[in-house]
Structures are given as structure tokens and as C-alpha cells.
């Protein structure tokens, strides 16, 4: 079994929606992750708050961001165990993030550090 990272890209939800709507998304996310955890296939994950973010560039130039330059920013990730990329994709399809038009979940295999990958 391999590990895959599911990277969420979406706009800052707190700028689009009411606290009540945020609450509903949180719940949906919990239920979605709970379903993966119930199969003992959730390795971990976290949300990445949009406030207080910085980008460090060449020559140590620090900017606020990365907002404004690309529409979808990384808002969080989870790591799952799956037999194949297709199974990991099936997990990704259930993510509440995808309710937002233009939002994406990128599915990437995690290198094993076994000298091959």
C-alpha cells in the first residue's frame, strides 16, 4: 500500500461564506475524513490558515501571500493510504472542497525514500 497526499486548492472560505456556512463545511470535512479513517486509511493532515502567510523569495525577499497572484491557494492537505492512485482519487472525489467551482484536489504519491522513488 502506498501513501498519497491530497492537496486542496481553494479560495479563502472565510472571505466567501458566513460562519454558519464555514461550520457546515467543517462538519462535512470531518465526516469525509472520518469515512477514510474508518477504513484505517487516514495517515494525517491539517488545514493551513490563510492569515499570516508569507512567501520567501529569491534574495530573501519576503512578501505577504501567496494570495492575489494565483486564484487558488493551498488551504490544506491530508495523507491517505491507498492501493493505487485510482483509489486515492476516489477518496479525493468525496472532498467537500470540490463543491466550489474552480477548486481542486491534487493527488500525488509520496516518495517512499527507498532509493527507488
Amino acid at each position, binding site marked *: 500500500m502506498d501513501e498519497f497526499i491530497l492537496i486542496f486548492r481553494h479560495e479563502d472560505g472565510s472571505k466567501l461564506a458566513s460562519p454558519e456556512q464555514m461550520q457546515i463545511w467543517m*462538519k462535512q470535512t*470531518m*465526516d469525509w*475524513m*472520518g*469515512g477514510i*479513517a*474508518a*477504513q*484505517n486509511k*487516514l495517515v494525517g493532515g491539517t488545514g493551513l490558515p490563510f492569515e499570516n502567510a508569507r512567501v520567501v523569495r529569491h534574495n530573501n525577499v519576503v512578501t505577504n501571500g501567496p494570495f492575489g497572484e494565483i486564484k487558488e491557494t493551498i488551504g490544506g492537505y491530508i495523507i491517505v493510504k491507498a492501493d493505487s492512485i485510482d483509489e486515492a482519487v476516489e477518496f479525493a472525489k468525496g472532498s467537500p472542497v470540490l463543491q466550489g467551482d474552480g477548486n481542486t484536489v491534487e493527488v500525488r504519491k509520496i516518495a517512499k525514500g527507498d532509493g527507488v522513488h
Partner: protein
Amino acid sequence: MEQKELIPHLFRTEFRKITAVLCKAFGIEHIETAEDIASETFLSALETWTYKGIPENPVAWLYSVAKNKAKNHIRRHQVFTGKIAPQIRHAEPGIQEIEIDLSDKNIMDSQLQMLFAVCHPSISTEVQISLSLRILCGFGIDEIATALLTSKETINKRLFRAKEKLRLEKVKIEPIATGFASEAEINKRLDTVLTTLYLLFNEGYYSESDNAVLREDLCLEAMRLTYLLIENEQTNQPAVNALLSLMCFHASRFNARKTEKGEIILYHDQDETLWNHELISKGAYFLHQASHGNKISKYHAEAGIAYWHTIKADTPEKWAAILQFFDQLLQIEYSPIAALNRTYALSKVKGKTTAIAEAEKLNLTDNHFYFVLLGELYTDIDNRKAKQNFQKAFLLAKTQTDKLTIQKKIENL
């Protein structure tokens, strides 16, 4: 209280206190000496009280006899180390003036420190439970064997091994505040302590033993020891309060969850007037105390689930909340039983069809509860499949109680 009842009663409450205090005074390598002195004290009580009657203050009598026996032991020990041992090897200073302090404060401190020593990571959890029952709860070997459904021999072996291990690892009985290098060290050990107490409670709660009194005693002892942690500043932490809250909520259903014959009554069929409301409100109190800080332990999630189960009415709000707690619990620590229960909660929130799809992904085909769950979910949707699943569950079920429950479900289809 008649003497016939008084001595066993005092044995249960005082033996462990005397043992803990003596053990702390002598060091854990002398754990057997401490137990022997405590046992001899009760033997003296039995002999003396039979002839002279029960003293005015039986507990004070026990303490002073225990103190004298301890002092005599030390004196004999000193004669040995002072006069005989030097001829064998260089004399060590040994134990000199030890004050045996049987005040409430020292009893509490000693028991707490013993709990931390017993839950040393070098000892397996199974053995920690037996040792805790013996040293900290004052259970007899017979009682431990009955409660844990094993033989006296096994328990004796476990206890022997545990004491060896404590000696070998030179485990110290130390004050919590100064005995550990850092707060992180305390918390690490506290995790092990909580696991042991959690399992100790479960041993009682889910025990197949037909001795109802003993089962309940096990749970109450686990609660008492958890409360010990709450009374101490360094260990009065959110996870500890969450654990006690969880225990209170579960214990509130003691009288409702089994028939007189010891058959399990399922949650839905329980007579809620038999639920203990005092324990429910205590559970709520400790859950409130647990809601500080920003770390959520598995005990928080389980206490949350148990809290919602104290409300019998089926509301969408109840099951949505339970589902969230199971989601949380599974993310903290996976267990097949939590996965199955979560799927049941899911069926209450999103309907049976959604839940069946999720249940089939769990693939826990060696677990009879898995097929019980599928049977439940298929009931009224596809009764033929429901029956097939219940039949598979029946074949996999290990205990007579479980088989009986499943049989009833098949008949009710």
C-alpha cells in the same frame, strides 16, 4: 457493622493504603515486605478482635499495629545489616529512622505515586492491570482471577513478573512534582496511567464474569484512581477529566444494561428510569472541566459520544453530534469497533443506503460485529441480505450472549 463484615470491608479500604504507604517508605523493591506487613496487620486484627472485641476506632488500631510491625521489621533489618551483613560485605547505611506516616495526605500521595510506578512502561498493560488491582485496589488473587476470567496461577505469575521487573528497572516511587525531569515526562507517564485506568474500567464494564458485584467494583476502583489524579494539581489535566466523565456516563447505566441473570440489555431496550442521574450530572461536570486547553484526546471524543447517549430521544442533532465525535475519535486512533459504530451513526444521519456503501468498504470480515452492523443496515432494505449477514455474524460470534442476541435479530426479521 459486625466483625464478620467489618474486617473484609476494612481489608478492601485499608489494605491498599497501608501497602502504598509502606511501599513508598521502603522502596518498591520491598513491595512484598509491604504486602506482608499489611497482611499480618489484618491477621492480628482477626485474632485480637475475636477475643477482645472491636476497638473503638478500628482504622486507627490497624494503622498503629501496621506502624509497629513496620518498625519491628526495620529494627530486625538493621540488626541484620548492622551486625551480620558487614561480615559479608561492607555495610550500607540502609534504612534508619523511617517515620511511617499514615496521614490522609501521605496515603493519597503514596497511592498516586504507586500508580505512577506501577504504570511503568517496562511492564505490559495486562500486567499493570493485575498489579494495580492487587496493590492499589486491594483485590484478592481469587477476585482478580475471576474478574479477568483467568486462573489464579496466571495472576500469581503476572504479579511475580511485575515485581521482578520493578526491581530490575529500579523503578522509584517519587513525588510527581519532583520525581520527573519535566512536565513532558509527567505527561508521557500520565498517558500510560490513563490507558491502564481506561482498560481497568473496561475490564469491569465488558467483563463476561457472572459476578456482578465484582464487575461493578472494578469500574468503581478505576473511577476512584482516576479521581486521585484529579485531586492532584500536576495530574488534574483535561484528558483526565474527560476520562472520568466517560466513566461516569458509562457507569450511570450499570443497573439498566444487564438483567438479573446477567444478560446484556441493548441500549434501545434499556429502561432509562434505571439510569443513575447523579452519575450523569457528575459526568457532565467533569466533561465541562475537561474542556480547557486546546488538545483533544480520545477520551474527549468518547466522553462526547457517551454524553449524547445519556439522552435517549433520537434526534437528528444527537446523531450528527455522535457522528462528528466518531470522526474525531477515528482520526486520533483507529479501532475496528469505532469504525463500525461510526458507520451506524452515519446511517442515522445520512440513511441506510449511504451507510451500507461505507460499511462495505470497512471489510472487517473476521469481526462478527461487522456482520451484525450489515444485518442491521440491510434490515427493511433487503431482508434476505440482512438474514445472510446475521447468519455470518452468528457463526463468528464467540460468546453465548452474543449468539443469543443475534439469534433474536434473525427471528425478528
